[in-house]
C-alpha cells in the first residue's frame, strides 16, 4: 500500500460518510443490546419482577435489535469501495 492511500481525506462524499456512520452504528449496537439485556437485573433489585413481564421485555428488545441490525446492515451494503474506505477508516 502506497503511503498516498494512507492519507485520509478530511471530507468524504456523502455516501461514504453515511456508510461510515452506519458502521459506527453497527459497532455500538451490541453494546446497546448488552445494556438493554441487563435491564431486568435492575428491576430485580427491590423485588423479583414477574417472568411474563420480563419475557415480553426481552423478546421486544430482541426483535428491535434484529430489525435495527437489518436496517444497518442494509446500509452497509455498498461494499464495492468498502475495502478502500475500510483502510482509510483504520480497518475498523
Amino acid at each position, binding site marked *: 500500500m502506497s503511503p498516498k492511500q494512507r492519507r485520509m481525506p478530511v471530507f468524504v462524499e456523502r455516501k461514504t460518510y453515511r456508510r461510515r456512520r452506519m458502521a459506527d452504528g453497527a459497532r455500538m449496537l*451490541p453494546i446497546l443490546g448488552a445494556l438493554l439485556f441487563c435491564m431486568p437485573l435492575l428491576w430485580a433489585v427491590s423485588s423479583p419482577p414477574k417472568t411474563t413481564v420480563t419475557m415480553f421485555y426481552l423478546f421486544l428488545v430482541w426483535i428491535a435489535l*434484529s430489525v435495527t441490525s437489518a436496517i444497518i446492515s442494509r446500509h452497509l451494503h455498498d461494499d464495492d469501495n468498502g475495502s478502500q474506505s475500510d483502510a482509510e477508516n483504520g480497518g475498523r
Partner: protein
Amino acid sequence: MASLNVLVLVCLIYVIFLFAVAFAADRAALHGRGAWLRSPIVYTLSLSIYCTAWTFYGAVGFAARSGLEYVTIYLGPTLVMIGWWWTLRKMVRIGRSQRITSIADLISSRYGKSNSLAVFVTVLAVIGTTPYIALQLQSVTLSFSIFAETDMISGGPSSQQSTAFWVASGLAVFTILFGTRNLDANERHHGVVMAIALEAVVKLFALLAVGVFVVWGLSGGVAETLAQIDASPISQFEVTNSRWIGLTMLSAAAFICLPRMFQVMVVENEDEGHLRTASWAFPAYLMAMSLFVVPIAAVGLERLPADANPDLFVLTLPLQEGRDGLAILSFLGGFSSATSMVIVAAIALSTMVSNHIVMPIWLWMSGESAMVSGDVRSVALLARRLSIAGIVFLGYLYFRVSGGGAALAAIGLISFVGVAQFLPSLMGGLFWRGANRVGAIAGLVVGAMVWMYSLFLPSFGDTVFLPQQVIENGLFGLSWLRPQALFGAEGLDPIVHAVMWSLLLNTFVFFVVSLLSFPRPIERLQGAQFVNVFQHSGTAGSWSGGLAQSEDLLIMSQRIMGASEAQALFAGAARHQGIAGLLPEPTPDFLQQLERELSGSVGAATAHAMISQIVGGATVSVEDLMAVADETAQIMEYSSRLEAKTEEQARTARQLREANEKLTQLSVQKDAFLSQISHELRTPMTSIRAFSEIMRDTEGLTEDEQNKYSSIIHDEAVRLTRLLDDLLDLSVLENAQVVLNWQTGNLAEVLDRAISAAGVNEPGFKVDRIRAKEQLELRSDLDRLAQVFINVISNARKYCDASDPVLRIRSKQSGGNLIVDFIDNGSGIPTDKQALIFEKFSRIGETKAGGAGLGLAICREVMARLSGTITYLPGQNGAAFRVTIPIDVEAAKAAE
C-alpha cells in the same frame, strides 16, 4: 400410541432424505448449478448448529428449573452476531485471505504457524467437544427410550446403548461420506451445509409446532398461557446478576470459539456479504427458537407428573396428550439438532486432528522428507476419515463410561468454558500486534489447567478424578486452592467461578508473557497481516526462492492436491510467469501461492513445514520486515519526502518569480531604451539636418559661422557613429566573433591609459590610486581591458553625485587572478537595480549624461571573452565595480 417401529421407520426415511439432499447438493455444486446453495439464507441456517439437542430439549428443562435464565445461552450469540462488524467480519476476512481450515489453524497461523500451538488447541478442542458429542448421543437415546416406554416394549439400558451405537455409526458414515469428499478442507462442503440448513428448518419448525400446540391447544390462548406461567413455580424472574452476565458472556465467547461454529461461520463461508444477512437473521432465528420455551416449561410443570424429566417436556407433552404426529415431529427436531452438531463437530475436529497431529507425525515417521514415495493425498484423506470415526467413537465411549446420567447434562456449559479458553489468544491475535506465540501458549495452558481443576474434573463427581478431600480442603490442604472456591472466592456459582478465574488468569498470563517475550519475525509478520487484514489482505511471509526445484515441488503437490489439480496450478503459474511448459520458476510469489493452496489441504503449519523441507527454509525478506516494522516509519518517511519536495518547489517558485520580475523589468527597460535610442538618434540627426539646411539655404555666411556649423554637424555625426559603433561592438562580442589580441603588459600602464582616455584629469574629480600595488604583469588583450576600465571610470565621473567626487582604485593579486576595484563615493546603485545594470540598454534613473546604456553590457561581454568577470560590489558606500582578470589568459583558457 406411537409405535417404536413407526418411529424407527420415520427416522430412517428422514435420514435417507438427508443423504439424498446432501448428495443432490454436492452434485449440483459439482456441476456448477445451484446458486441458491450459496445464498445467505443457507449460511444463516447453517449457523444454527449452535442450537444442539442440548438447547432443543435442554432449554425447556433449564427453564423449568430456573426460569428465564435459559435465555442467556441465546443472548450471547445474539450480541456477537449483531456486533459482527467488530469481530466476525475480521475473522471471516482473515479466514478467506489466509485459507484457514480450523480454529487451531487460525491460532497457529497467527502465531507464526506454530504447530505446537495448533496441537495444544486441537487437544483442548477434542477434550471440550467429546463430552458434547456424548451429550447428543444421550439425547437421541433418551428420546428413543421415551417412545419405548410408552410402547411398553422392554427397553432397558442395553437397548439404549445399542441405540447410541447405531446413531453414532450412522453419523460417522454420513460425515465421512460428505465431509471428506475433497481433501481441501477450505472448499465448501455443500452437501453437509445443505443438510444442516435443512435440519435447522426442521428443528425450528418442530419447536414452534410444539409451542403453538401448547399455547393454543393445551392452554387455550395467550392470556391463559400467561396466567399459567404466573401460577407456575417459575413465575418470578429470580436470577443472580453474576449468572445472568456470566452465562451471557460465556455463550458469546463459546459462539466465537467453538470449533464447529468456526467451521460453519468462517471455513464454510462463501461470501463475506452473507454475514450481513446473518447479522440480523440469526438473532431472529434464536429469538424464534426460544420464544415458546417458557410456556412449554410452565405447562409441562403443571400437567406432567412431578418426577418427569423436564429436559424431555418437548417430547412428553405431545405424547401424553396423544398427539403422536407432533411427538414424532418433535423427535425429528431433537434428532436434527443432535446429528447436525455431531456432523459438523466431527468435520471440524477431524480437520484439526489430521492436519495438526496425524500428518506431522506421519511426515516425521516417513523419513523426514516430503519426497518419499506414496500418496500423501490418500494418507491425508484416510487420516481425516479415521479421525472422524475416532472422534465419534470417543463421544460414544464417553457416553458409555459416564453412564448417561445427570452428570452428562451439565457438560454443555462445562465444555463451553473449555473452548472459551481460546478467546484471549484469538481476540489478542486479531486485535493486538504485540500478542505472541509464547504468550498464547502460556495463557492457554494456564486457562486450560484452571478449567480442568475447577470445573471439568469436579464435574465427574466427588471421587472419580479428584478426591473428596481435595474438593473440600483444597490441593495439598491449602484452602485457597479449593477447586470451587479459588483464592477464597466462595459462594459463587461453580460455572461463573470457573469462567471468571480461568479467563482472567488466561488473559493475564497471555498479556504479561506477551509483553515480556519477543516474537520471531514470522510471528510479527503474521501479526501485522492479521491485525491489519483490511489494509493489506495480501501477502504472507515470502520464501527465498531459487534454491527450490520446481519438479520436486510438483511431485509433492501432486501427492497432496491430486495430479491434475497440481499440474493445473503449476501450468497456470508458469503461464503467468511467461514460461512455456509445466514448471514455473520457484519465485517467492509462486511458493507463497503454493503454500496457501497446500494449507487448504493440510493446514498452514504442515504446508509450511513441507515446503520448507524442499526449499530449505523460509526467510522473511527485508521488504516484509519493513512492511511490519512500523507504519509510522513509512508515514514519517513519506511526509519528510513531501516536505523536501515542497521546499524544492518553493525554491523553484521563488526563482521563477525572480526571473519573471527580471524579465518584466527588462521589458520595461527595453521600451524605455527604444524611446531613448530613437531620441538619442534623433537629436544629432535633427541638429545635423538643421545646420546643414542653414548652410545650404542661408547666403552670406561668414567663415566663422560656416566653421561653427560644420563642426557641429561633424560632432553630431561622431556621436552617432559612436552610438552605432557601440551597438555593433556589443553585437560582435555577443556572437563571439571578436578577434582578441594577446599581449603582455603592466596593470598600472593600462590604468594610466584608461584614466587619461576617460578624460578625468580635470580639477573637480579626484582619482585615488596606490601605484605601488599596481605593478603587476599580466597577459591579456590590454586594449579591450582598457576599454573596460575606461567605461567604468567614465561612468564614475558621469554618475558620481557626491559634491566632492573621489574614485578609489584598488588592485591586488589573488591566486591566478588580478582584482581591480573601482569605488566611488556617490550614492551607489539601489539594490533592486543591481541585477540589471549589466543588461543591455539599462540605465539607472533619469540620465543626465545621455549614455545609451550599453557600456556595462559591453564590459561584461569583454570580460567574459577575457576569461574574467566584472561584478557589482555592494556595501562600499558608493558605486563599486570589481574586475577580475586572469594573470595569464591563455593558461586560464586552457584550464577551462
